């Protein structure tokens, strides 16, 4: 069975309480993401990017609205099911890499596969395969503090892919990287999107992301301001 949309958000609303203030992070966001699509969510900081992102990633629950991932309403899942969903269906990439500092690159990548119930051997084999794919064949036994930012982010990408997720969520994946390393990371993301038909969603305000995305969603003050497909961008570029 396959639905056209992998992610469907309906009327997603979220408020935070900060001290005595209530902050509306999202106000009735509707968003559909197709299978195999590469979507960038853009917007200034405070626009609700990360909040929306956390909602899609089942890290946080909305106050109102529904989120379907692969046809399942994730706002209705219990803790066990959420753990399973995060483990098997979603791969996360964070701005700060967020690797486990005490584990080696290969162990970091293998960890989600261990959680998913694979044996140590299977998990390690797959980890090595993926680290080779992201170009870190010779860094398997290095620990995160011994790796550069770009290398750490590659490890994070390999980790996000290990359970063959349907969607990879990358929150500001290039935010802590220099221009050149950032470009390389984006091209790795685009490659896995094309070659493994993994849906990729990035939250970013990095304009380098625009070129590779199939669609760009502009978020402002918790609402979707406008959306642009890659064709629109091409059109504008030729018009210039």
């Amino acid at each position, binding site marked *: 069975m396959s639905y056209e949309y992998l992610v469907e958000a309906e009327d997603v609303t979220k408020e935070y309480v900060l001290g005595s203030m209530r902050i509306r992070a999202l106000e009735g966001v509707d968003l559909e993401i197709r299978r195999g699509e590469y979507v960038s969510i853009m917007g200034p900081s405070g626009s609700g990017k990360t909040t929306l992102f*956390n909602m899609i990633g089942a890290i946080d629950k909305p106050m109102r609205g529904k989120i379907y991932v692969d046809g399942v309403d994730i706002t209705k899942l219990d803790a066990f099911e959420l*753990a*399973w*969903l995060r483990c098997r269906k979603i791969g996360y990439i964070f701005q700060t890499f*967020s690797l486990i500092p005490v584990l080696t690159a290969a162990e970091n990548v293998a*960890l989600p596969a261990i959680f998913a119930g694979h044996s140590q051997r299977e998990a390690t084999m797959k980890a090595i395969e993926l680290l080779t794919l992201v170009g870190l064949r010779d860094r398997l036994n290095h620990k995160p503090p011994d790796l550069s930012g770009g290398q750490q982010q590659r490890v994070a990408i390999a980790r996000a892919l290990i359970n063959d997720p349907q969607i990879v969520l990358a929150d500001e994946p290039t935010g802590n990287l220099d221009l050149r390393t950032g470009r390389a990371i984006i091209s790795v993301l685009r490659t896995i999107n094309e070659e493994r038909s993994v849906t990729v969603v990035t939250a970013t305000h990095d304009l380098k992301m625009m070129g590779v995305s199939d669609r760009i969603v502009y978020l402002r003050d918790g609402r979707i301001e406008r959306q642009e497909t890659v064709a629109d961008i091409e059109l504008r570029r030729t018009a210039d």
Partner: protein
Amino acid sequence: MKQTLTNQAKTTTFPITQVLRFSLEDMKAKGTRSRITALSIMLSVAFMVFLSTMASILAVMVGQTATVQTHYYLMEIIALMVCFVGVTNTMLMSVTERFKEIGVMKCLGARDKHVVIVFLFEALILGILGGIGGALAGLGIGMITFGLQVGWELITLVPLHEYARHVVTGLVTAVLLSEAGSLYPAYYVARLKPMDALRHEL
């Protein structure tokens, strides 16, 4: 067209061998703090075993067990309470330091239980190490002190199994103490929502 998740095998696991490795790696990485925690467990257990060894020897010497022992139990309890607070404090520190890491683990599929187990395992290892060291040190110091003061024959009068009992009690106390001290911190951090754990900045 919408479906719900069925329960069949939709669960995540964290095998005990992995937990062990994870705990050990973490303790290795935070060597100094681990050593200090083990040392504090060791000291209070050493004190406790020292007191009970002393009580055993005194009992053989004087022959009036009851009064001597109530007195020492009180001191033992105080020593253990100090240690309990110390362990809880160290474990809380270890937990807060790893908020982010725990958030990441939860994003990768770890359940609350898995997080608790990692911390309890660390506590177990620290408890065993501190317990063995402390019990043997306490016993040794007690025997030597009395051996020098009142003569070595007197020490041999205390049955061997009584010494053994003190050591085992010391070890068990160390493990229980260490586990009890880390239970609350582990439980607290395991229940954090992944998002709150991730957002946490030190």
